[in-house]
């Protein structure tokens, strides 16, 4: 076996140029794989983090009936106290209690349906960071009475500008229509069409006052210190408050999960394509190597090297090729990931379009350590698969004929 390995190793360097081409393509293939994995991962993470950070947060709490029947009466009992209490949980970074109802948002010229949020600005800001997404005006900073913040697109639809007056109309507890006049204090631009086109944010005290509510918390949004602690926090909350509906971001926005699995399968397709390309490259090269050494292989069989050993010699030679290329590719990929992970990829040149997909124009590729193991295993498997046919060809030869070919 050692002799086989020696011969195989030296054979690798026999056609130096050809071997280097294969090694090079393995290096590039692996690097591309890692880069794509990292890019897609980074993209997904940035997209999901954006959605979590600016829209849905990690965990939302509602009164049990509220989601099915968003009646303004279904408030979380003792909602403010609960929110206060959750603030002291070390695993929870920020808590925002909100009032929430749906209604009409009208300007003198147009009106549009949408959600109306009553927020406590300091709290809300710490969860959804909407203050960083204000394109005009400010986030509840002006002295305007009855301020409202609406999405930029909604403002366009309603044909209102900063300081314009809008009227919010919604139902109170007894299903009576109530209305209040507000002034546009800020325009918001997010990646969520729901927020951009059909949401208005006012102060919680304004909303509860108009609706005539004593307690006005319909929704509590939580941002965790560490997203992974969801597995601890969620069950804890659920067992402490069995009568409330407590959901993670996956349940609140199942489309994110779908997006995740879609990019996942897309990635597998890409990996498959790269691997198939590598397999064909390897088959081609090793087949050339076998045909070139036909006479030599015939001689080896004649003097007593059995088919199994010849088969193994070709397989080992192929594995050596990938063992040289594999680590180089992985190392290059690792270094690229490390560098880009710190540097980020500035997509601002394309971000006009990307604005639709995520918040950050700088993408930080990321790859889990286990992925390197998968990539390495994938390369070995690829090499093995690519070796089988040439090795089979080699053992098929007939020694007398092989020795005759000139």
């Amino acid at each position: 076996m050692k002799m086989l390995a020696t011969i195989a190793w030296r054979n690798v360097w026999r056609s130096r140029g050809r071997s280097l081409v294969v090694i090079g393509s393995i290096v590039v293939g692996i690097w591309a794989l890692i880069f794509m994995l990292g890019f897609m991962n980074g993209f997904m993470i940035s997209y999901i983090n954006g959605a979590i950070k600016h829209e849905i947060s990690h965990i939302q709490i509602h009164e049990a009936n509220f989601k099915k029947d968003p009646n303004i009466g279904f408030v979380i009992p003792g909602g403010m106290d609960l929110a206060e209490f959750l603030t002291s949980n070390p695993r929870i970074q920020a808590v925002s209690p909100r009032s929430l109802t749906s209604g009409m948002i009208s300007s003198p010229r147009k009106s549009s349906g949408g959600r109306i949020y009553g927020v406590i600005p300091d709290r809300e800001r710490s969860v959804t960071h909407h203050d960083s997404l204000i394109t005009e005006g400010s986030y509840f900073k002006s002295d305007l009475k009855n301020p409202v913040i609406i999405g930029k697109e909604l403002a366009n639809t309603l044909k209102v500008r900063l300081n314009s007056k809008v009227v919010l109309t919604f139902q109170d507890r007894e299903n009576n229509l109530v209305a209040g006049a507000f002034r546009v204090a800020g325009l918001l631009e997010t990646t969520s069409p729901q927020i951009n086109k059909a949401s208005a944010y006012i102060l919680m005290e304004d909303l509860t006052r108009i609706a005539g509510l004593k307690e006005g918390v319909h929704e509590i949004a939580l941002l965790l210190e560490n997203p992974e602690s969801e597995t601890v926090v969620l069950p804890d909350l659920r067992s402490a408050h069995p009568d409330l509906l407590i959901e993670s971001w996956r349940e609140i926005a199942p489309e994110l999960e779908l997006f995740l699995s879609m990019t996942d399968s897309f990635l597998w397709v890409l990996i498959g394509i790269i691997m198939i390309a590598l397999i064909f490259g390897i088959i081609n090269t090793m087949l050339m190597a076998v045909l070139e050494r036909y006479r030599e292989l015939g001689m080896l069989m004649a003097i007593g090297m059995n088919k199994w050993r010849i088969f193994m010699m070709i397989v080992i030679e192929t594995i050596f090729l990938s063992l040289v290329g594999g680590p180089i590719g992985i190392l290059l990929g690792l270094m690229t990931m490390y560098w880009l992970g710190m540097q980020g990829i500035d997509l601002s040149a394309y971000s006009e379009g990307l604005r639709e997909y995520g918040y950050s124009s700088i993408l930080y590729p990321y790859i889990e350590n286990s992925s390197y193991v998968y990539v390495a295993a994938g390369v070995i498997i690829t090499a093995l698969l690519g070796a089988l046919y040439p090795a089979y060809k080699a053992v098929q030869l007939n020694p007398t004929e092989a020795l005759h070919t000139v």
Partner: protein
Amino acid sequence: METVTDKKIVIETRDIAKVYHDSKIAVQALRDVDLEISEGEFTAIVGPSGSGKTTLLNIIGGLDNPTAGTIKVAGRDISKLKDSERIDFRLHNIGFVFQQYNLIPVLTARENVEFIMLLQKIPVHEMKARSLHLLEEVGLKEKANVRPSELSGGQQQRVAVVRALASRPKFILADEPTANLDSASAANLLDMMARMNQEEGMTFIFSTHDQRVIDKARRVVTLEDGIIKSDEVRS
């Protein structure tokens, strides 16, 4: 057909025929070949091109099967062996020397010599001892760690013979071992083979065109159109 009668017969062919069918016309490469070879012979198979020398050696060496007839090598009917058994049989009983491309180009002279012994699973120390001793014997000690591409044609053939010898086969079959050599190297190689035949008692069968090589043989079997025309034993 007189052979050295007090010696054991180790190769015995009976009415061997070989017909090749791969082209449109069938080619009768051998017909009715009866041949007995005794232990320790130094025999040349001669004849014009196409007379069947290579075919006969290939059949004796178990690389090819006869179309008809029986062949016993070292007491075994090798035409009845399975492919894998046959490779094993060659490994342990037969040393081959071909006209060219005998050596593994990526191995040094010594590694080439040791290659068959490795396949035979000979203990390392014995393997090293045998290869160094034999290489020294044929004057190639200095070239032990050199690859075949740095050896002359004659040196390469000597390494090939040494490799065959080192594995201690019952026979060494050499198909035109000197065909690619100048006459001085050819004579040199033959002298060496003759010496090994004397010293190690190995049976040598080789084919050749070269009259000077024929002169060194102790028995000359002449083939013509696949038939044994003459079989002459010299003193």
